[in-house]
Structure formats: C-alpha cells, structure tokens
C-alpha cells in the first residue's frame, strides 16, 4: 500500500480529477478546527447527538464510532473504537462501530493525503490523534452539558465508565446528549496523559466477534437488492489479451441467463442467479486477440531478470565505496521470488445499482476515493454521485485496494452496458447487479505480488567484520503509471526494507532495475518487505555463519545504533530461549525487520522427521508497534501475519506457462492449513510512542526466520521461493 503522501504534482492532479477544490485543506483535518456548533440544527428529542464526524451518542447512551477504514479482519472496528472510548471515559459495552460513508473531505487517510482508503498498516497510526480529539471533545461537551444542567463547575465533574457525575448528580451520556448538542464545540480540548489510560492497552473483546461467529456479518457477497441480477465475467486467458469474437448463443440458452454483454475487461454473463451465470459462462465461446499479451512463462521472466543482475541499476543507496574495499572473503547469493496471489477468502464481489443521476455501490471497499473516481469515469457520472456502502471484507491483504478499481469498474461497466436502450429495449436499466469473482477468477486474475530477483554480495574482513554490502533488485513496479508514482525516484515499493537496514555497514550500495510486463501487479501484505526482508535477513544470517559468529551476536554488533530494533531482537531471543537445547532434529532461526513504522522479530523452531520432511513447530514473536491500543488484536495480527507469511514462503507461487497461469484454485495454489500452523507466542515491547502498523509487519521476518532455521538444521540455504523447490515441507 502507498505509504506516505502523494507527490505535490500528483496531489494537484488528483484534486483536478476529483474536482475537489479545497480537498487539500482537509489533510490533517480535525473537525474541532471548524469552530461551529456541534450540530447545525438544534437536537431534536430522540435524535442522536453527533458532536463530530466520528462520534454519535444515542439517547440510549450507545456511542457509535464511525470507522473511516475498511474492517477486513485487522481489527479496526475494535481498535479505533477503543481510542474514542478511552478519551470519552465510556464503558466498552456501550461502544459500537459503524462504517463511515465514502467522503474524502471528512474521512481521508492522512497518511495518503486527500484520499479515503485503508492500507499500509496506517489505520491506527493516522487515526490516533484524530480520534483522541474526537472522543475528548465529545466528552467535554457532555461535561459542559452536565455543568449547565446541574449548575456546578465543569472542574467538579468526573466521567467514568460512561457515567458523568458530580456530588449527588449523575447521568448517562444519553441523558446529556440533547443538551450537549446545543453547545459550542470547544477548541483544543486536552487529551489524556497515556498513564491515565484505562481501556487502551487492556484486553477488550472484539466488536465483530458475535456477528462473525453466528453467520450474521454481512459481506458484499451477502448483499441483496430487489430484482438483483448476478454477473460473472470471462476474462482473457493471457494478461493483455482482448476479446476478438464472442458467440453468446449457447450461453444465452442457459436457463436463468438474462444477457451477455462485452465490457472492456472481458465478456459478462448476467443471470438471475450465480449458478445460472456460472453455467452460462461455461457455455460462452470467446476468441482472444493476444497480440499485446504477455506470452512469456514465469521461468523466462525470472531468467530475463537474472540477466539484469550483472548490470548496474538505478542507484538507491550509496554509502562509502563498496568496490574499493579489500576483503578477506567475498560472499554472494541470488534470490528469486514468484508471483503471489492474495487469495482472500471472499472472492472479489460488489453490488452496483446504477441510475441516471447516481450510482450506489456495496463492497468491502478498501479505496473509497479512488473507487469513486474510477466508478464515476466508468459510469459517466461525477465522483460525488457515487455512493459507496462499505461492508465487511472477507480478507484483502491489499487486493481490494487497487488504482484501477478493477472489480468495482467491472461491476459499473456491466450495469452501464445493461442500461443501454439497445439492450433488451433498456428494460434491464437500473437493475442492481452483483458481480462475483469465482476462486479461479481470483487466482488467475492477476494483481500479484511481483516477481523479484535479488543479487547480494558482501565483503568480510579477516576478523569477520562486515565491510561492504551490495544489493541489486530487479522487478516490476507497483506504482508505475499511478498517481502514487514518484517520477525520477527509485520505486519505493521495490526497495523498502533494503534501502534502509538496521545494520551499520561502512560501505553499502543498493540499486534497482525496474521492469515492465502486461501482468498486473499489486501490493501484497507488507509490499516490498515481502522480498527485501527475506533477502536481507537470509544473507545477514549466512554472513554470520561465514564470520563464524552466532547469528544473534552478529546482528547485535551491527545494530548497536538501532536501539529499537535491538530491543525487539533481544526480547524475541530471550523469550524463545535462544541458545538453549532443543530436541534432536530441531533448530532455531531468527530474523528482524522494520516495516510500516513497526519492528518485529521472529524466532522460528523447525523440525525434520526421518523422511526429511520439515515442519515449523513454534514461532516466538516480539513486536514494537508503539502503544498497543488493543494488545489482543496486535497478537492476532502477528499470529495471522505468521500464518500468511509461512504459507507463502513454503508453497505459495503463481506460475505461468507461455503467459497462461498454471494455478486455478486452492488445490493448485496451496495455502497454509491448520495442521501446518506452528504454535505462536507474541510478546509486545512496552512503549509510550504513538501506535504504528500491525496488519503487515508480522509477515516480513517470518520467511527468513524459518529459512535460517532450515539452514541451521540442514545446511541448505534457500535462494528460490517457494521452499518446496528446495526442501520437503
């Protein structure tokens, strides 16, 4: 995900595109700056008190927090609600979370700029101060209402667990809401001293557990609208191909199929049910123009990339002079990383209802502002005419946020095609359409973690000191051609995790070859660090062995000027019992990585059975993510990152033969199952710093920690991912 602001040029371009004059003023927006009254209209009896864009207090004292980020499993409905509850001194039981509408003026992600969207593990990071202020101001208004009602000074009023009290007076939030809504919004309300937190940092039950444990949670695939049609799309078998001829006769003969329409991304079969649409698509005959398609297989792509390792790339980092160093020993390694599909459990789905003056969309929407722009363009409407209802997403891992809004645009273009007067005399116009991707569509549909190849070279002194480090990266840019591209600079998503490393090496050179291909690529849980951290942490471990040092001791020496990384490493190895004996046939490996402003270290324990099969038995994790708002959610994200990362390194790969994807479903795109999940222990470094990311940072150090354990156990260094190409797992 894009981390950091857009460039100024791109920001201006964005504002032009959206027609959002003044949207830029909303960067860093806090509603308190408006200085208006809490409500434009006086509060009516029985109506909710809405002191700002994030908080609603109902007459029954339910406090609803409007969540501007997508809940896709990472726990924002719980964590962001906790921030508001803390500053309001509310009771956890009275708190509720609700998806905010798509509105970049109110709900932009300040880490992205004037865009509402979720990613880059920024949800808590960018909401922290904003939601503390929202909660504190709501509290101040309730206190002011109590002070006026009771005739006591505000300073003599306390709030605890949702009860406002002073002497003999006491009231719940709901009782004060109507009065509070008439009061002027105070500016600069002081925030709590973190040492006074009573909710943050404690165990708080997730807000979505009950719904999700009873089948009641609503995902886009569950949304129903009157007269809704269901669509599936036949897409080209090779990336970059286009439909040449379409024979829809047999498809249209399938009972329940309503229409077949061509859209820019393929051919859509529209029916009264998924089953009919699926059968219709099976019967559809399409020939493809493959003249502009990627026709290489992945082996050929990797070979092409490896050839680039021998020539210098675009310079990313240069410290000292790597080539001038005289070494006692030179160590070299090459790594390759395959395409990876995100494969969230809920395949991509959206519901689109297109009218003449507006378009309503239901989706597990991760990139509301970008999706509004792209949907508007596809529909021939203005972005502000696009209403997005954000519902729960059945996972994403980056997939649902993409700069072309692929599945949203498909849904809109199908609805648009159906609204054409020439199609059945326009009688399908306005029918809501639910677009469903099958699992095969998902696995073969692209937007993969790009293929990367890395070349590493290090020089060691006679005493084992690491004197020089050369790191060359080859791969496709995720950002190229997008509004987030930083022209004239090396692509950050290719080099993050490699450009800056927590090891002090006097001579260091990092460079990059950015390649192109019609295969669409995308950020995949932890983005560049999915491959850079593997290369860096595998290689540093190998160098420790070459230098005849313990891998932890070797890292500690190089990490002296990075106390945060060192503390995380130390906690992980201490809790894992580094150096203590293990059963026969077991070994440990360690890795540490910073990503999305957090630092994570994993110690992995791996065993090998008498048939040579390897198993990851246990992972001990330490994380510094600043203040852990909801520590149990942080733990869950580390557990999840470990499992997601482990499946990918063990056997995750999308391969292509002559440009056609070889995998199609979970039988061929293997994902981690419960019997392969290690025991996990998570330890959080106590911190008083503002919260940083947790959704992604658990992933990067997992792969190298396991690879390093395998090397310690078997002597085999894994250079080409996934591991199944080298060892038996």
């Amino acid at each position, binding site marked *: 995900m894009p981390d950091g602001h857009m460039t100024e040029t791109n920001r201006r371009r964005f504002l032009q595109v959206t027609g959002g004059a003044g949207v830029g003023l909303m960067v860093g927006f806090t509603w308190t700056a408006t200085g208006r009254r809490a409500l434009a209209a006086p509060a009516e009896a029985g109506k909710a008190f809405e002191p700002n864009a994030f908080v609603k207090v109902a007459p029954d004292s339910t406090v609803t927090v409007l969540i501007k980020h997508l809940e896709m*499993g990472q726990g924002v409905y719980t964590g962001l609600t906790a921030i508001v509850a803390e500053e309001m001194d509310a009771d956890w039981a009275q708190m509720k979370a609700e998806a905010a509408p798509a509105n970049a003026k109110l709900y932009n992600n300040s880490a992205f700029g004037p865009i509402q969207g979720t990613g880059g593990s920024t949800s808590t990071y960018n909401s922290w101060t904003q939601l503390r202020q929202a909660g504190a101001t709501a509290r101040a208004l309730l206190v002011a209402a109590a002070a006026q009602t009771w005739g006591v000074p505000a300073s003599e009023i306390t709030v605890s667990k949702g009860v406002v009290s002073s002497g003999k007076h006491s009231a719940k939030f709901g009782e004060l809401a109507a009065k509070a809504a008439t009061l002027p919004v105070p500016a600069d309300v002081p925030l709590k001293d973190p040492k006074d937190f009573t909710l943050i940092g404690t165990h708080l039950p997730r807000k979505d557990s009950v719904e999700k444990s009873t*089948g009641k949670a609503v995902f886009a*695939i569950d949304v129903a609208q009157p007269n809704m049609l269901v669509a599936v799309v036949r897409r080209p078998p090779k990336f970059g191909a286009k439909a040449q001829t379409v024979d829809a006769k047999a498809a249209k003969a399938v009972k329940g199929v309503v229409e077949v329409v061509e859209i820019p991304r393929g051919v859509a079969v529209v029916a009264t049910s998924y089953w009919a649409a699926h059968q219709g698509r099976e019967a559809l005959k399409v020939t493809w123009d493959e003249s502009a398609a990627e026709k290489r297989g992945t082996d050929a792509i990797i070979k092409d990339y490896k050839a680039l390792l021998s020539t210098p790339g675009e310079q990313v980092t240069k410290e000292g002079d790597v080539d001038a160093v005289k070494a006692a020993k030179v160590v070299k390694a090459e790594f390759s990383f395959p395409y990876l599909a995100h494969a*969230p459990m*809920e395949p991509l789905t959206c519901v689109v209802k297109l009218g003449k003056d507006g378009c309503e969309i239901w989706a597990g929407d991760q990139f509301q502002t970008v999706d509004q722009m792209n949907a508007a363009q596809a529909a021939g409407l203005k972005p502000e005419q696009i209403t997005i209802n954000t519902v729960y997403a*059945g996972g994403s891992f980056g997939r649902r946020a993409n700069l072309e809004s692929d599945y949203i645009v498909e849904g809109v273009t199908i609805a648009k095609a159906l609204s054409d007067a020439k199609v059945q005399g326009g009688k399908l116009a306005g029918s809501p359409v639910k677009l469903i991707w099958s699992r095969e569509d998902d696995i073969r549909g692209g937007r993969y973690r790009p293929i990367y190849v890395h070349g590493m070279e290090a020089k060691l002194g006679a005493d084992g000191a690491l004197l020089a480090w050369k790191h060359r990266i080859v791969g496709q840019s995720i950002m190229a051609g997008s509004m987030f591209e930083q022209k004239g600079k090396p692509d950050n998503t290719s080099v993050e995790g490699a450009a800056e490393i927590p090891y002090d090496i006097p001579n260091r050179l990092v460079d990059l070859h950015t390649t192109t291909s019609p295969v669409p690529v995308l950020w995949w849980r932890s983005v560049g660090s999915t491959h850079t951290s593997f290369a860096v942490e595998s290689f540093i471990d190998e160098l420790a062995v070459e230098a005849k040092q313990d891998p932890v001791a070797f890292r500690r020496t190089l990490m002296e000027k990075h106390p945060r990384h060192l503390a995380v490493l130390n906690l992980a190895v201490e809790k894992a019992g580094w150096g203590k004996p293990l059963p026969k046939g077991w070994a440990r490996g360690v890795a540490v990585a910073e990503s999305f402003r957090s630092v994570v270290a994993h110690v992995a324990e791996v065993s090998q059975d008498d048939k040579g099969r390897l198993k990851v038995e246990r992972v001990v994790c330490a994380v510094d993510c600043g203040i852990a708002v909801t520590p149990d959610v942080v733990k*869950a994200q580390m557990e999840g990152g470990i499992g997601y990362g482990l499946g990918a390194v063990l056997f995750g790969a999308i391969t292509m033969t002559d440009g056609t994807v070889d995998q199609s479903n979970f039988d061929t795109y293997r994902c981690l199952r*419960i019997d392969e999940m290690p025991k996990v222990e998570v330890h959080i470094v106590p911190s008083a710093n503002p919260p940083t990311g947790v959704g992604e940072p658990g992933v990067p150090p997992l792969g190298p920690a396991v690879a390093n354990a395998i090397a310690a156990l078997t002597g085999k260094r894994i250079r080409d991912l996934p591991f199944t190409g080298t060892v038996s797992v």
Partner: protein
Amino acid sequence: MPPIKLTLNGKPWSVDADPDMPLLWAVREIAGKTGSKFGCGAAQCGACTMHVDGQPVRSCSTPIGSIAGSKVTTIEGLEGKVAKAVQDAWVKLDVVQCGYCQSGQIMSAVALLTDTPKPTDQDIDSAMSGNLCRCSTYVRIRAAIHEAAKALEI
C-alpha cells in the same frame, strides 16, 4: 421437474431448482440464508460447510438433487449445547478476523465435538484441515475447540 423436498434448519423446504445446482447456492440465493459462504466452489476451502443429516459436507460441491429428503443445517440453524459451547468459545477467545470462513469453521468444529468430545490436537488437525482461513486464525481455532470441549465436560 417436481420440486426437491428437504428440511432446512428444522423446517420443511421445497426447492424448485435444477437438481445439479449446488446446495450452497440454493441455500444462499433461493432460501436467502447467507451465513454459509462461497470460497472456492470445489470443496477445497470449507467456507460453505453445512451439516447434512448431521455430517459436515461441502455444500458448494453437493448437488441439491443428490440430498433430497435430507436434513440440512446451516450456521443460522445451529442449536444445542455443543453449538453453544463452540460459539461461546469463539467469542471468548476472539477467534475471528475477517470472519468469512468462520461459519464453515464453526460447522466443522461442532461436528468434530459431537463425535469426539475430547479431541487431541491431532484430531483437530484432521477434522479441521479442510477449512482454510487466510487470516490464519488457526492458533485460536485450536484453542477454542479445546475451550469448548472443556466447557462441555462440566
């Protein structure tokens, strides 16, 4: 074609559908019960798991015509002390993340505990390995099944 007659969540259910239509889509799109999820359409992920005559089945790959006369239970119709123990444990341990696979996980876990009240880790692995979770909530699924087993002992 005569309608197919079954029992859905304890109530008679007469479905006018192509007998090849997977049970999952009949339940989701005809009966309107959406707790059971579509994840793969190929019996690979378990998100669609329902009970047919008490046994966990992958409803995405079960033609509705093949189970005429059967009793079908979905997450919406789960009841009894095993189901309650499982769902309570799921909530107590905050197992869910995105939640999309969890209906299927819970259906498989209830079937496991109904047959095997005190499962070992190995029992859990073999009963639950057909249910994928891309959020990797596996650590907590295992713990919650043990937790539910403990609650059922009392």
